[in-house]
């Protein structure tokens, strides 16, 4: 192949992320930008590839039930490390480092951002220098939380030994220049600005990486990043171009690079509030289970709202190639994705009929339906973002066609997605009727994602408005099925259950209206070879394989 040769032969490669990394320790930040930047340096035992399949990195193979790496009771998983691995400083990589990584993150004072990856882990033991065993307190049908994927890479015990617990933030040097096993090492890290890297001399694969240095620029906006790759050719790779399709298409005409897209599990959805968030209610009772929503508690209304939406058009306007209309909360992987496509055709008339049926009619002729003197008016909020605002406008338009009045509201994303219990504008607090945002799940297993919709996970004043069941969906049957999923290890069975759960949230109840399965668009220069866009792991997962090619 063209890219073979000695390490560092292709000079410099330049990557631009419009969000700048602030730290290179993924355990202190779970921000995507930080995790992905650090994935050039730090590596996990195994990664997900572009299809979502598990591939070994530092481990010799992925432990499974079949190969005996995972115990029958689903309570332990044993990893075997590759031989002769070296840290970039030349010291050997051992099972100790793996155990240290777990201890580091599980330290109760450290505030580890990836703690969820280590959920249920009761102990990590070093069997020998090359073997490490993770034991869970409960059976784990999906034991690939720890040490799998960009979010839980292995850090060097020697470097971080003095940085555990409360001292974690003080180790600036280590957090900015972690020693790793990945293809690159940090030369200079300027937080929130730029990282310069050089090829790791001790990288385990000969002749890789092809580039001697890597410049990782951060900051600006997606437009500028796209422009720098596709129009001016100043950069080789631009991450996550959240731009309107026509804008991206125009940039691609620049001819210096091209956009790529891939799909994962990210779904843009409408959440319909099942509780009443009216400001007339006393504080403490607003948006709580005490008061069901006066309008949206009716399934017919919810269904009508869904029917009025033309999801294909939304995709065309907002995402183009990088989106697919979907009716599912869990759009992938195939095993878990339901075949539900009912919602894809817009049916304004049907929606009108449904509303009539539900008793909402336009008695006063102002174009807005009403019932018992109450108007069919909804407050629809989302975070500030150009595409979301276009969506809001379109959906408002459709809803107005079926006689629903919509008030739009957008909130700064740092407030909207922040969990500040004092703010009334957070998405958890949901002081609105309809809310739009996107969510996904890590890796390929949707269990914990689906478990978010159990009754116990309501955000409420008692929980300081923390909680993942954003729209306050509550169904005992659903809760029971989630529990069942947690006990099931058999893949087929798990798929069945997940699909059922997905359908209960969407086409059975219409409490969540999925809109678009959002793919990822990134752009690579025409001269950059070996890029494989991966939405299941860090986008830079295979940077070691990148090389320069002739145009």
């Amino acid at each position, binding site marked *: 192949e063209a890219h073979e040769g000695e390490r560092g032969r292709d000079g410099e490669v330049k990557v631009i992320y419009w969000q700048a990394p602030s730290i290179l320790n993924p355990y202190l930040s779970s921000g995507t930008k930080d995790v992905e930047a650090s994935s050039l340096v730090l590596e996990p035992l195994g990664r997900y590839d572009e299809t979502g399949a598990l591939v070994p990195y530092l481990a010799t193979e992925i432990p499974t039930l079949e190969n005996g790496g995972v115990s029958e009771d689903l309570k332990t998983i044993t990893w075997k490390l590759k031989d002769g691995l070296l840290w970039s400083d030349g010291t050997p990589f051992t099972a100790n480092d793996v155990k240290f990584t777990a201890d580091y993150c599980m330290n109760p004072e450290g505030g580890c951002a990836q703690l969820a990856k280590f959920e249920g882990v009761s102990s990590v033991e070093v069997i020998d220098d090359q073997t490490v065993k993770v034991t869970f307190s409960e059976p784990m049908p999906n034991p690939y939380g720890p040490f799998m994927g960009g979010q839980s890479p292995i850090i060097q015990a020697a470097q971080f030994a003095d940085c555990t617990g409360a001292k974690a933030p003080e180790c600036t040097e280590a957090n900015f220049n972690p020693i790793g096993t990945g293809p690159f090492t940090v030369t200079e890290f300027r937080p929130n600005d730029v990282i310069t890297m050089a090829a790791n001399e001790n990288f385990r694969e000969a002749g890789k990486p092809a580039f001697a240095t890597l410049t990782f620029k951060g900051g*600006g906006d997606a437009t500028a990043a796209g422009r720098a790759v596709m129009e001016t050719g100043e950069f080789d790779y631009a991450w996550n171009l959240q731009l309107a399709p026509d804008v991206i298409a125009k940039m691609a005409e620049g001819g210096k690079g091209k956009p790529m897209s891939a799909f994962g599990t990210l779904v843009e959805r409408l959440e319909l509030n099942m509780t009443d968030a009216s400001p007339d209610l006393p504080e403490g009772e607003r948006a709580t289970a005490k008061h069901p929503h006066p309008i949206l508690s009716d399934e017919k209304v919810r269904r009508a709202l869904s029917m009025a939406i033309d999801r294909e058009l939304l995709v065309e306007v907002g995402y183009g190639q990088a989106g697919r209309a979907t009716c599912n909360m869990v759009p992938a992987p195939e095993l878990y994705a339901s075949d539900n496509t009912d919602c894809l055709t817009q049916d304004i008339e049907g929606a009108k009929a449904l509303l009539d049926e539900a008793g909402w009619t336009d008695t006063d002729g102002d174009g807005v339906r009403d019932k018992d003197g109450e108007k069919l008016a909804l407050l629809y909020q989302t975070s500030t973002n150009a595409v979301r605002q276009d969506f809001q406008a379109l959906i408002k338009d459709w809803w107005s066609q079926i006689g629903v009045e919509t008030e739009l509201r957008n909130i700064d994303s740092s407030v909207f997605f922040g969990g500040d219990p004092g703010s009334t504008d957070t998405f958890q607090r949901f002081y609105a009727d309809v809310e739009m945002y996107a969510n996904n799940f890590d890796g390929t297993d949707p269990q914990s994602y689906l478990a978010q919709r159990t009754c116990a996970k309501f955000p409420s004043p008692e929980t300081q408005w923390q909680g993942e069941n954003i729209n306050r969906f509550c169904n005992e049957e659903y809760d029971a099925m989630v529990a069942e999923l947690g006990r099931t290890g058999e893949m087929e069975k798990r798929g069945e259950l997940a699909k059922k759960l997905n359908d209960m949230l969407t086409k059975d109840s219409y409490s969540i209206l999925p809109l678009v399965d959002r793919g990822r668009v990134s752009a690579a220069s025409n001269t950059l070879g070996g890029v494989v866009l991966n939405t299941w792991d860090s986008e830079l997962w295979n940077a070691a394989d990148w090389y320069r090619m002739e145009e």
Partner: protein
Amino acid sequence: MLTFTIRRLLLSIPTLLFISLVIFLLLQLAPGDPMAQVPLTVPPEVKEKMREALGLGQPIYIQYWKWLVQVFWIEPQVFIDYLTNRSALFSWLPDTNLSDGKLRVISWQTRSPVMDIVIQRMPQTLWVVGLAYIVGIVIAIPIGIYSAYRHYSVFDQAGTFITMVGFSIPPFFTGPLLIVIFSVTLGWLPSIYDTTHVVNDWASFKVQFMQMIMPVMVLALQTTAQISRYMRGAMLDNLNQDYVRTARAKGLKESVVVMVHVLRNSMIPVVTIIALGMPAIFGGAIITENVFKVNGIGQLLLTALRANDLPMVMTLTFIFAVLIVLFNLIADILYGLLDPRIRYD
């Protein structure tokens, strides 16, 4: 003058303390959460743990007190340590280790001392924003002088027109416009500023020059608009003064009359206006820095705001407040120095 300065400096300490308190409360009260950028896949319990690790659970007054101690007591110690240990000037002094093991102001985003990052950001901010300020002034002053001298001439009218247009167009428009023209269409200039670029020879200087042109020009446009207005006004005030006639009666050349006698007097208010604008340089230029990826102080503040990195926002805002108070004082002192009629006692 000296006592005046010292008095004002001392008085500014309580002022600054008060300002810092107000800023602190404002930031505390403002909604927003440092966990806002953490992906939704991270469960709330983990976020809660992360918040605790940042010290968010503590009562407000303790957080404020900690910040005060860190900024006013520990950071100066760090500075002294730096001076005695590493700086070229004072390293002959015995090494001090005052700050060892003491907790500095730590950014929540980067988990590193805020001051280090600020210092790291200074060069590009000063280069770009500072140079833009200088360029703006250098362009504005002749325009102002000539507009006033040829009051209501075509030049004056055109100058007014262009500066007002320049003032009224936001940089988030001019910036991308320049990029589209000069980087995309013509391909002459880079659209992304390289902060790591080191100038060590002519070629690298040229590169630096190329990458600075656009941000500097966008910023300079605003400065030019304002300063040239002030300059024009001040010149107009002075051109009709009696001493100008005296100077002419001495047989001085018109250029000497205007450029020496009138200009010197007109510069007094303008210089103070310029001094008052200085803090803004250190404050960076949020939008322009962002458009050209200059990643100076302005961009730092913006990212910190977006990430609700309170220690960073607080410290940057406070530094800005210090500069404002300081440059207010400097403007006053400059006024006294430039105008012999003014004496502070």
